[in-house]
């Protein structure tokens, strides 16, 4: 049931044609597979999104964290933080095909909508590395604030956003000139950035500040700071990390870390409408392609929770490797 999807753009086609043989050797991702990086297990786990069963676990580099997929579904990109590299993994065999020059301590990254280049946050080095994934060549290194982490590319591919955890800013970087064109101050320890599909809103979570700032990328103003309150859970443990917004822009899901809940937010009014109890230290989130399922990585309970999106119900928890960190679902 290998699904070959049409290539998203001429630029990506070009990228693949000039790409390395390794990429050709890779099969496309099977439809409906979730891939989870296990930070302490040094492995990735593949989950069939129909049966919700683990189909395969494979050893990867040390301290795997950020995990994304190429638009053509043929490659998984994985930050192997303690190996100081980004690994390119075949979604079918889960074999490491190539290692890319990520710069030191890569944690999170974002891919240009065309599939190239890759923008990598080097947390220990206060910079963003821009990497041509075909040539495995560093195109630029952009100095940003202290401890960059969250990375997002606008849907039109023109603007890259990097959040710096100690500087507490979202840096807006022009993807052609690699210049920082603006900085927006948010709350303490911004962890993750997510554009809405129309590019009109940017959600930035602040782990220690306990808030999610919604920024209008056109005016650079914070439209709203979303805060959370769960009865019986102390304010300090509510630490927003992963954020996902449905493609219709109507609903946002926010992982609240050690509060062990995912908040459901009306992405138009910014009202928090529900809190769903998931596993312990919920970190990152990923939708299934039809957006009917949401997968959450729960770092302290070593499992993945599956949320039924339309019914806002947690339907299953799936045991994975040690300290699951990131998750991506194929096809993208």
């Amino acid at each position, binding site marked *: 049931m290998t699904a070959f999807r049409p290539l998203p753009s001429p630029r990506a086609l070009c990228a693949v044609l000039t790409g390395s043989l390794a990429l050709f050797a890779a099969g496309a991702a099977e439809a409906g597979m979730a891939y989870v990086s296990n930070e302490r297990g040094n492995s990735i786990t593949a989950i069939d999104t129909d049966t919700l069963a683990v189909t395969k676990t494979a050893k990867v580099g040390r301290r795997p964290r950020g995990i994304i997929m190429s638009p053509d579904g043929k490659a998984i990109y994985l930050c192997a933080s303690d190996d100081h590299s980004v690994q390119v993994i075949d979604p079918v065999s889960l074999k490491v095909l190539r290692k890319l020059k990520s710069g030191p301590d890569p944690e999170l990254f974002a891919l240009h909508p065309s599939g190239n280049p890759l923008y990598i946050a080097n*947390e*220990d080095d*206060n*910079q963003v590395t*821009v990497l041509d994934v075909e040539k495995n060549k*560093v*195109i*630029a*290194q*952009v*100095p940003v*604030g*202290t*401890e960059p982490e969250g990375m997002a590319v*606008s849907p*039109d591919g*023109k*603007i890259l956003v990097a959040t*710096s*955890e*100690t*500087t*507490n*800013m979202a*840096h*807006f970087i*022009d993807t052609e*000139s*690699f*210049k*920082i*064109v*603006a*900085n927006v*101050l948010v709350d*303490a*320890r911004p962890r993750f950035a997510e554009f809405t599909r129309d*590019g009109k809103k940017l959600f930035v979570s602040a*782990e*220690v*500040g*306990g808030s999610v700032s919604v920024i209008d*990328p*056109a*005016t*650079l103003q914070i439209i709203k700071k979303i805060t959370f309150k769960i009865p019986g859970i*102390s*304010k*300090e*443990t509510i*630490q927003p990390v992963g954020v996902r917004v449905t493609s219709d822009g109507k609903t946002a899901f926010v992982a609240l870390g*050690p509060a062990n809940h995912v908040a459901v937010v009306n992405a138009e009014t910014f009202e928090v409408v529900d809190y769903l109890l998931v596993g312990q230290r919920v970190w990152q989130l990923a939708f299934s392609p039809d957006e009917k399922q949401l997968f959450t990585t729960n770092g302290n309970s070593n499992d993945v929770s599956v949320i039924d999106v339309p019914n806002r119900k947690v339907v299953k928890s799936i045991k994975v490797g040690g300290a699951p960190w990131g998750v991506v679902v194929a096809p993208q």
Partner: protein
Amino acid sequence: MSSLRAQLLAATTAAARAGMTVGRLAVAGLALAGIALPAQTAQAQPSNPATAAPAVLEVPIGLLTREVPPPPLYDLAAVPEDDAVAGAALAIKDNNSTGTFTGQHFTLNTTSLAEGDDPVAAAKALVQGGNRLLIVNLPADELLAVADAVKPVGAIVFNVGALDDGLRAEQCRADVFHVAPSRAMLADALTQFLASKRWNRLFLVVGPNAGDKAYAEAVKRSARKFGLKVVAEKPWTFGPLARERSDSITKSDALVFTRGVDADVLVVADEAGDFGNYIPYRTAEPRLVVGTQGLTASTWHQAQDAWGSAQLQNRFLRGTNRTMRPTDYQAWLAVRMVGEAATRTKGDDPAAMAAYLRSPDFSIAAFKGVPLSVRPWDQQVRQPLLIAQPMGVVSVAPEDGFLHQRTPLDTLGFDEPESKCHLN
């Protein structure tokens, strides 16, 4: 050019006018951060003068500390010469990383007092030099003298060294923020850990110094607070055996003095580190040692690597070639608090910063897993404390299950209803 980028550039120009910093400062950031880029990689270029950033606000910070006496011939854990200073210097770098984007530039001006130097005169000189934000790493009496001397000129003081409970009680001052933990907090943290293990019976061994007695008092108070029992208390009368340099450090009377006491743990009160490390394994009965040595409570620890602190530890280690000590961390935190206050108040006015720091709006990320803030009733920084043995973190206080209506962090130290502090 995409519409989004066009809008961004327009907004950026507006933002520059409104005091937001762009383009050119990002380049300044390159230079400041000392990052050399390979020639083939793209670099940010100065933006055109029309979008030039406003003048940079200089924020000088004073650090007042005392010279560390040179260690004896061999001291495996000597206090480093740059204790506290290295932590503050690292935070200056962190602040300036934000400052390049906000148009603020922080500098550290350190005065290290030699023996006999007057701390008040030195503090006044620092303030006259423009340092109205003072980080002070001095004992309680000198801290108070400094705080009272600089108050009339509107300076504020960050205590990063003095643990005395009195500074947070009868002797509290409105111009002093306590970044160092109080002895009450340290004792509460350790006692919570013991209570969570149900190691309820304590054998207290108290050193001869005033700080040792104060620490012992704090332990007794904590024991009452959390339902533990001090079953025995003995003074240490055998001298600084942990530091003794001789060919025969074994003292028979020191080896037998723990005999016949039935307790779960032995708690040492030895702030100077004179004998606490002599006791483990030399007790008559097999006995765990906690307190100022053995298992300790502290704001920071070399083995701490959770919550992203590996990054901070690494930055510190690279810059200094040594591990970060609690005093370094406290000085780092104090300078970061100034940085955060300068960012959020968009200025350098100490009064505005103090108002912000003691307000409920203030919280800061400091690699402790939860935001830190300031208790408005005594201006003590509320923070988790690490329960650690020399090479590993064992637990983090507040322990699970110690609840408080405001925040579990307020189970450590003096709570509002019992506070004897009247700020003025």
